[in-house]
């Protein structure tokens, strides 16, 4: 959600926002829209726009213990396949159902080797997820998307990208220099685009070829 607030100083505007929204300072992101510093006889005025993170879907309900086990042949085979590959890599794991949604199946991997199973920037988890999705497609479930997660990596990565997007927008606005972000997969790029979509003076565009393109964040100036 996006709302605007005013104060005599930046700090005051932020305090007003925090009080009205009932949030801690780190619960929202602030964009300075207008900043007039006050003089001896003149009151300063700062207008800010506040982005709260209610766009992220409500946290998924935790499944009851009896529901994390596979409920049908398809789920059983997906779990088997995932577990088998991980054990083939030389790691032990517990694989269960994380969530069931329309055309989406979440799989949770628990392992003492979670960090290597996830890999740098989720590289290994993404590779495993791709294979699992191809396998699901071969079983006639092309329309079901399988999402693998371990140690809440997906949600943590999403939050990190939203933060990176806002920080980059701030930097671009300050320096008036565009910034090219590190290569990201389509899902991660979409998070950057949608996060910065509402910010009028900032523009985002993907550059490069293939699956891992880079997002460039540029300053568009005052409207």
């Amino acid at each position, binding site marked *: 959600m996006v709302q605007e607030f005013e104060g005599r100083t930046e700090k005051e505007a932020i305090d007003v926002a925090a009080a009205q929204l009932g949030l801690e300072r780190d619960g929202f992101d602030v964009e300075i829209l207008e900043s007039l510093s006050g003089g001896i006889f003149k009151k300063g005025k700062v207008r800010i726009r506040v982005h709260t993170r209610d766009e992220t879907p409500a946290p998924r309900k935790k499944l009851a213990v009896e529901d994390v086990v596979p409920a049908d042949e398809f789920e059983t085979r997906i779990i088997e*396949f995932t577990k*088998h*590959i991980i054990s*083939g*890599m*030389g*790691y032990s794991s517990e694989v269960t159902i994380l969530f069931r949604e329309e055309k989406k199946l979440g799989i949770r991997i628990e392992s003492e*080797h979670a960090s*290597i*199973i996830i*890999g740098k920037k989720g*590289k*290994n988890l*993404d*590779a*495993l997820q*791709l*294979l699992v999705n*191809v*396998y699901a497609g*071969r079983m006639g479930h092309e329309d079901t998307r399988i999402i693998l997660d371990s140690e809440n990596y997906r949600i943590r990565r999403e939050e990190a990208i939203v933060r990176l997007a806002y920080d980059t927008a701030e930097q671009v606005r300050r320096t008036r220099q565009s910034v090219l972000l590190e290569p990201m997969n389509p899902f991660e790029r979409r998070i950057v685009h949608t996060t910065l979509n509402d910010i009028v003076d900032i523009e985002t565009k993907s550059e490069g070829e*293939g*699956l891992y393109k880079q997002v460039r964040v540029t300053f568009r100036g005052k409207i």
Partner: protein
Amino acid sequence: MERDLVEYIAKSLVDDPAAVNVAVVEGDKSTILELRVAEEDIGKVIGKHGRIAKAIRTILSASSTAASKRIILEILD
């Protein structure tokens, strides 16, 4: 071990699992795995733009033995 892993993945993705064969060429610093599948199944282990082959290679590079020895996957036709 990686041989079995590649065989398992390949057999799970192809139409003709019986035709899947993985040969191992051991070197000092690396192990080469040569994967052969039925001609009609080649695309199923390579994928569009090599996505599946790349994913299998990534999985191999994350395996516990990859820390000490490089594992190279070759898909032969």
